[in-house]
């Protein structure tokens, strides 16, 4: 108890509160600008934390991490350009909702879901982190494969009646993910003898291209709406009421659990959590066909999950010294500059510091509410600019956002090619979301399948019949069958057109 009181006193000192507020605001702004992200912000801030007390420095880094994970959703909702990969799934429903004139509500759902998801995961981190870290480490390739397959089955729900087109889009995404050096054998695949594609197709330029550039090309062709008159509605963020939040309680709770659990697993972070959160929101919804048109569940699902992953990713970092995400890997540097080695001994040697980090993350998530409102207000003003001006500005940010990842021109061409593909997808009614889901989850699916089968000596039964993996796969298979049943049999409209 004394340790807790000491930690509370530390966090609620004016200096620490200032650093947390600054960190959340900075993280949210970095997250909202395509090309900049919280990992970059954390890395740049580490040298500055050297001069600070460890609790202030680490609270600042944790705050940037929390803010950055949320910030990307602002630009995803307002402009269909996810500021950070974690926010890509938020744009699936966030942008259509904004297009309908409800941008304020969409931002409100995103902020509230992020805050609640973040708080939930910190609570879990606080209560049972050592036990969870051990469970997380028992996950092996079959479990990763089962998780990826479960998320991919979402494609069946997203397609609605045009299921074949949705699967084509998903398969194209999975195929794009195979480009580059094979992770297991180091063989180049689909590189056509050149060096440009050896590094593979990064999903961020692909997402930015398919959504933002595709939209710009479509708008250029349409010619309508370029005057911006339809956008001249003042956007003010509207937080959801308690009644609306209660209606979303199961979506949020499910995504919070998923996000925390995914965050704990090493190697898969907030982006995967957001996609699985979205996928499960669709799966358990009473109206899956409405997803993609701007439903609150489509925002709450991924947003709760990606912020819940922040607390989840801190579990293995603090308890075992293993980072659960890119940003927490960078944060190890923050510990090391203060002569601290993250891991079980830190709980014994520096318990006050550990609890101060927990409390700082609670405070950061609450501050995120205000930072989110502030940054969203600033960014929302850009929506009132007419599209003939906004379109080229979005294109430039999309280009720099793609270039900034690896400082490679290939990523810009990937963005542009995916933009043209996204335009044709839109024109011929192929859903874009499955392609992105395939691209994000492709490497995890393929590598876990091949590694797992190799480990199981190519015995499919041994590979699939592990308790956790088997259960997840059975649920995933049942949901696909239910989807097929409800589309083709229950409605009694099985025809070739429906499949196509």
């Amino acid at each position, binding site marked *: 108890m004394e340790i807790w009181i000491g930690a509370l006193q530390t966090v609620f000192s004016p200096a620490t509160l200032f650093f947390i507020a600054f960190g959340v605001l900075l993280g949210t702004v970095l997250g909202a600008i395509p090309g900049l992200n919280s990992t970059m912000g954390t890395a740049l801030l580490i040298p500055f934390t050297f001069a600070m007390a460890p609790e202030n420095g680490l609270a600042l880094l944790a705050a940037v991490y929390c803010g950055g994970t949320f910030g990307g959703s602002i630009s995803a909702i307002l402009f269909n350009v996810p500021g950070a990969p974690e926010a890509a799934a938020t744009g699936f429903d966030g942008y259509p909702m904004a297009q309908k004139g409800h941008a304020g509500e969409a931002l409100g759902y995103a902020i509230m879901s992020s805050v609640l998801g973040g708080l939930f995961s910190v609570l879990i981190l606080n209560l049972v982190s050592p036990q969870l870290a051990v469970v997380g480490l028992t996950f092996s390739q079959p479990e990763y494969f089962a998780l990826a397959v479960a998320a991919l089955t979402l494609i069946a729900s997203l397609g609605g009646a045009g299921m074949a087109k949705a699967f084509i889009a998903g398969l194209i995404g999975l195929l794009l993910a195979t480009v580059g050096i094979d992770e297991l054998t180091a063989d180049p695949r689909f590189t056509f003898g050149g060096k440009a594609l050896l590094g593979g197709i990064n999903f961020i330029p692909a997402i930015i291209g398919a959504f933002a550039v595709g939209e710009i090309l479509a708008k250029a062709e349409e010619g309508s709406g370029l005057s911006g008159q339809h956008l001249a509605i003042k956007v003010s963020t509207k937080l959801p009421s308690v009644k609306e939040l209660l209606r979303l309680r199961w979506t949020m709770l499910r995504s919070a659990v998923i996000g925390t659990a995914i965050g704990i697993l090493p190697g898969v972070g907030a982006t995967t959590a957001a996609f699985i959160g979205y996928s499960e929101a669709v799966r358990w919804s009473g109206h899956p066909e409405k997803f993609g048109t701007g439903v609150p569940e489509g925002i709450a699902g991924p947003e709760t999950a990606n912020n819940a992953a922040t607390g989840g990713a801190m579990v293995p970092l603090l308890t075992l010294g293993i980072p659960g995400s890119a940003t927490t890997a960078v944060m190890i540097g923050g510990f090391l500059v203060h002569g601290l080695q993250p891991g079980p001994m830190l709980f014994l040697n520096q318990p006050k510091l550990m609890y101060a980090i927990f409390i700082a993350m609670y405070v950061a998530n609450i501050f995120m509410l205000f930072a989110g409102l502030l940054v969203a207000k600033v960014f929302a003003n850009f929506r009132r600019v007419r599209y003939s001006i906004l379109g080229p500005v979005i294109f430039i940010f999309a280009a720099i956002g793609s270039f900034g990842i690896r400082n490679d021109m290939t990523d810009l061409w990937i963005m542009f090619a995916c933009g043209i593909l996204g335009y044709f997808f839109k024109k011929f009614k192929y859903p874009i979301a499955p392609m992105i889901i395939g691209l994000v989850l492709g490497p995890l699916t393929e590598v876990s399948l091949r590694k797992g089968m190799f480990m199981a000596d190519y015995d499919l039964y041994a590979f699939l019949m592990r308790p956790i993996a088997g259960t997840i796969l059975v649920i995933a298979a049942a949901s696909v069958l239910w989807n097929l049943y409800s589309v083709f049999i229950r409605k009694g409209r099985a025809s070739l057109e429906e499949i*196509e």
Partner: protein
Amino acid sequence: MLKSELIFSILIFVASLFLYWVTGSFGTGTTLQGAQMGPAFWPRLLLGALLLLSVIVSAGTIRRIAREKAWGESLLTMDRGKVRFFAAIGLGAAYLFLLPVLGFIAITPVFMIAFMLLLGEKSKGWILGVSVAMTAIIVILFTKAMYVPLPRGVWLFREFSLLFY
């Protein structure tokens, strides 16, 4: 529209077939060659499914064309929208080609002005103001505040870029 949709699904089929053929060259020099799941296993699985699904979609589109008697629709009509669409693609491609040659700071304002004019923007003040201001903001934010490098171009353009970042 239906005929263009049919062409698109046929293109997916043809591209899948070509890529399936390309997978034949995967993993020929690795120790895992002959293993049950080599580098070609997963892409072939995906391409096989793509071939099947593109046939289903194409068949469905042909049925719809036949039902709606749309075989006569012309693919070559050019309206103002299509001209703007192709011009936008040309402009985007030109920007990407010229970016590593001329550098970010030299090409970006020119591209933005051209794109705004293409999209029908009339206000000269907005066109000039936004293109110059956005370029300046991005250069300061990315290169000075966050140390993210932007393309500098070559030769004289590189010298020009070096004056700023």
